[in-house]
């Protein structure tokens, strides 16, 4: 038995609207992938979440035409990226996946980014110490210089990532409120 949710999400859009939706998904999947290097399948699935907010894996299969395995893999990826959340549909063993907001402004996404960045900064500081302490022995190897330069550069760059998200939030508040 197919759940009502399933039918509701996968095929209920008006055909003309559905055609426009396909056009949107195609655009974001190809164009955005070119720019970000994101996998086209991930982009496609993400765009469906942007538009439809909540979907089951079954819905996603119906919408994209991808296999169950492909869908399950990309759903897992989006869960890991904190872009969607997973819930069980009451009274069933089915899961429904939800994207509350766009990932850029989801506080969860933002917080995760920040803690990841902090950990990376600590690791980089350790590396910098090791590189500096062993400079004499290490500088003979060609890769030493580029490694040192990269560590320093990343240490300068990473704090700006949080600033980047703050700036986006600022801008959005100005526009949306």
């Amino acid at each position, binding site marked *: 038995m197919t759940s009502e949710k399933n039918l509701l999400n996968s095929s*209920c*859009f*008006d055909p*003309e*609207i*559905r055609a*426009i*939706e396909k056009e*949107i998904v195609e*655009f974001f999947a190809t*164009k*955005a992938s*070119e*720019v*970000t*290097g*994101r*996998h086209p399948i*991930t*982009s496609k699935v*993400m765009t469906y979440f*942007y*538009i*439809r*907010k909540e979907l089951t894996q079954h819905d996603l299969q119906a919408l994209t035409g991808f296999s169950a395995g492909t869908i399950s893999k990309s759903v897992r990826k989006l869960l890991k*990226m904190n872009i969607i959340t997973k819930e069980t549909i009451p009274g069933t063993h089915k899961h429904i996946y939800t994207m509350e907001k*766009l990932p*850029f*402004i989801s506080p969860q996404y933002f917080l995760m980014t920040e803690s*990841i960045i902090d950990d*990376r900064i600590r*690791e980089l500081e350790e*590396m910098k110490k090791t*590189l500096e302490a*062993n400079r004499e*022995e*290490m500088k*003979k*190897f060609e*890769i*030493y210089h*580029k*490694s040192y330069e*990269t*560590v*320093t*550069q*990343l240490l*300068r*760059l*990473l704090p*700006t990532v949080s*600033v*980047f998200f703050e*700036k*986006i939030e600022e*801008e*959005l508040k100005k*526009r*949306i409120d």
Partner: protein
Amino acid sequence: MNSNNQSTAKQKLKKIENGIADIITNLSFLKGRQPKISKIIALTYLHRKTTQKQLRELTGYSLGTISNAVQSLEKMGIIRKTQDPQTREYNYELEGTIAQPGSRSVTNIFEYFSQQKQFLKKIKTKLAQQHLSNKKGYEELSQFVNKMEDIFPAIEHATQKILTQVSEQNRSGSD
């Protein structure tokens, strides 16, 4: 003793090299970039110049994976391919630096923003057709388009600000 010291230094350096590549790969995951692609970018950057063979030794990925990855990175304007006149082997180099992405990929971003603006405008015109406004799915699509129209200028603006900031930092940092 001396050669012993040297081999530990080499090992430590190797560990750091992998550490840096992992960090870059990890951070790129936030953007949804494929880990294998990010690792290839990071290693090409650290080694300044790589060949497909060398990338294979460094990553353990199959030649097919590597050849696909370098091809798409070349298309994205992230790496540049040159041919060694003697060995006839192809060398890969990164355009620009990690902190300040290659000028071509920055141009790509802004080109993408403007393409997107045009695209959303086109979709809006389509949705504005009278007979569609009470059709199922109309609300969802309109909301999506409106949200995108709010968000992308914000991202564009923030990107511009950050790029200016990073390039200023690089300038003062390289002195």
